[in-house]
């Protein structure tokens, strides 16, 4: 049974801008669904429409099989965690937790029991008698969570609940929220701009861009089979390497020409992407994940591996691996989408730098024992079976 169902939901603001366009998905009982996308993509608007804080322009929203388009937030059986936590500053933690129950006119003993239970789940017992101003950021976040779970609602709505925490605490709360959600089994709609949060927490992830849903799938499916360039570039860190090339089919397979290099794709590889054939002699964008690039001096020979040459521009040694930034003689597969993502990820400069002189930048994930050096011209092996291909005009993935 679906807990939350959105059917062709749209939000158009009075000034004509679209907040959300034709959004449809349904959440199963106990499912953790993450809405992710760059700022202004409509993810928070979508969440607020489910909460009832934003009017729905068109479409139908159902919670527990009841249409709630015109139902007030208080009657939707939802609980929400706000980005700012929205703790009531004049109430003690205890009263903050009890507030939703008091509004339900629940008997006092029952309220106390439920508050105590929520407090023990989140470890708030010690601070029940403090005011929000006396709490640390992490504690406030917990209280906000507590106020949501004390209601035992049909759905949790969370609007970037971790964005105000420092990095360490964020990682810790990430797993804690996942754990609590699983323990309670309450369907959760979670909004974030952080794709790592989305990937690690969500049972499914919905990627939005410019008010449109791009793809909704399990994190692994999103990663392995992105629908389009935007999803391919947005999901994964470091991002997928995207270059422009021209594909040319022959009897044994196809040649992918870019810059002054060629990657040979044999029939086994091209058969993974049957419709690639219709792009014969045309320019396309191809993508390679950083972990599908191998250090030629370390990797074993494999018929699917094709070699390319690149110049190392920067090495980031992370201990467990080395991120090798390289430049390659090719056009970067830059579309407006990619620019937007690069801006979000703060990588615009390197992208723009690579645009003019047909030098593209890329990243490879090498094992720590790799001996490549900065400014060296190296040989990189590409695992062609894991390559991605995109229509350069529409941005769509080329699969079937």
């Amino acid at each position: 049974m679906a807990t939350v169902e959105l059917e062709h939901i749209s939000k158009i603001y009075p000034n004509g801008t679209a907040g959300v366009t034709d959004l449809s998905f349904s959440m199963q009982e106990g499912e953790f669904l993450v809405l992710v996308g760059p700022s202004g993509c409509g993810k928070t608007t979508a969440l607020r429409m489910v909460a009832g804080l934003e009017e729905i322009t068109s479409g139908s929203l159902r919670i527990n099989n009841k249409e709630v388009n015109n139902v007030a937030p208080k009657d939707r059986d939802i609980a929400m965690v706000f980005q700012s936590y929205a703790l009531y500053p004049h109430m003690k933690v205890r009263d903050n937790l009890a507030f939703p129950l008091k509004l339900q006119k629940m008997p006092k003993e029952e309220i106390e029991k439920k508050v105590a239970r929520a407090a023990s789940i989140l470890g708030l017992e010690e601070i029940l008698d403090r005011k929000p101003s006396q709490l640390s950021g992490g504690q406030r976040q917990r209280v906000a969570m507590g106020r949501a779970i004390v209601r035992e609602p049909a759905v949790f709505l969370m609007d970037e609940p971790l964005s105000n925490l420092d990095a360490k605490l964020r990682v810790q709360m990430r797993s804690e929220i996942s754990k609590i959600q699983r323990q309670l089994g309450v369907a959760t709609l979670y909004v974030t701009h952080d794709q790592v949060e989305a990937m690690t927490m969500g049972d499914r992830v919905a990627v939005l861009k410019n008010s449109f849903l791009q793809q909704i799938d399990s994190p692994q499916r999103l990663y392995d089979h992105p629908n389009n360039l935007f999803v391919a570039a947005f999901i994964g860190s470091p991002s997928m390497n995207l270059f422009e090339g021209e594909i040319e089919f022959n009897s044994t397979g196809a040649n992918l020409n870019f810059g002054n290099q060629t990657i040979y794709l044999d029939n086994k590889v091209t058969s993974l992407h049957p419709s690639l054939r219709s792009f014969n002699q045309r320019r396309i964008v191809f993508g390679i994940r950083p972990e599908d690039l191998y250090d030629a001096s370390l990797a074993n020979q494999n018929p699917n591996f094709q070699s390319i040459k690149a110049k190392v521009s920067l090495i980031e040694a992370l201990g467990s691996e080395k991120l090798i930034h390289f430049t390659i003689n090719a056009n970067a597969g830059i579309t407006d989408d990619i620019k937007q993502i690069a801006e979000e990820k703060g990588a615009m400069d390197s992208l723009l730098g690579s645009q003019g002189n047909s030098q593209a930048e890329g990243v490879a994930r090498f094992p720590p024992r790799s001996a490549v050096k900065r400014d060296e011209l190296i040989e990189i092996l590409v695992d062609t079976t894991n390559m991605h291909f995109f229509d350069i005009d529409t941005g769509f993935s080329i699969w079937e």
Partner: protein
Amino acid sequence: MSKPINKILFYGFVIAFVLSSLFPFYWIFITSLKTSAEASQITSGFWPSKLSFSAYNTVFTQDNFLQPLLNSAFVSLATTVLSLITSVLAAYSLARLGIKGKGLILGFILVAGFFPIIAMVGPLFLVFRTLGLLDSFTSLIFTYLIYTLPISTWLLTNFFSQIPKDLEEAAMVDGASRLQALWKIVIPIAVPGIFTAAILSFILAWNDFTFALSFISSPSHFTAPLAIVNLGQSQFQVFYNRIDAAVVVTTLPIALLVLLAQKKIISGLTAGAVK
């Protein structure tokens, strides 16, 4: 400020300023403690030769000053309560509901608040005469609202605008209606602002003389300022000690209230000035 001469000049000026502003109050206070005979002497001194509470006694027994005090209290309280209820709702709507022309409305409200009192007296007199409301508390309360509502609405609109919207939205998701969110979340947080608006309204009503003089005619309806003027005057003598006793009694509650609530008023008046 480093040179001692500057310091002496500065403190000398401050002391002179404070003394000159406090002196009238001091004079009123000690005159109220003098006997009628001493108060009417031209050579009356800076300290009563004999402390006497007879003026207070006479004011409450013979002059029945309690009645005007109660009248004032009733009129001021009624004004304050009505003003608060209306201005809280008005300010909340202006702050939250995205009303079109909000700036214009607020500007108009501000102008109304600055309208000269004396210009209102004539027209309002005619209005109340037509409505048969002259010599009634209603006429005063209604008139005071003309001045207290703009101030309160302005103050509270600013105050409400600063309370994060998230809090109300959280309350509404938590199961509150909009009115419940206003009552249980917004108003408790806005207490300093509401308190300030209340005090300002109360003082405005409590201190008014012009309107009371114009609209009220029967002594049983006199408010305190009006009663003071009609107090302690016989054909041959002005009883300054009795007048001043009444002034002290009228001023003291307000002064105490303001002193006690000083901190809240200041935080109410300056809220949002600096984040």
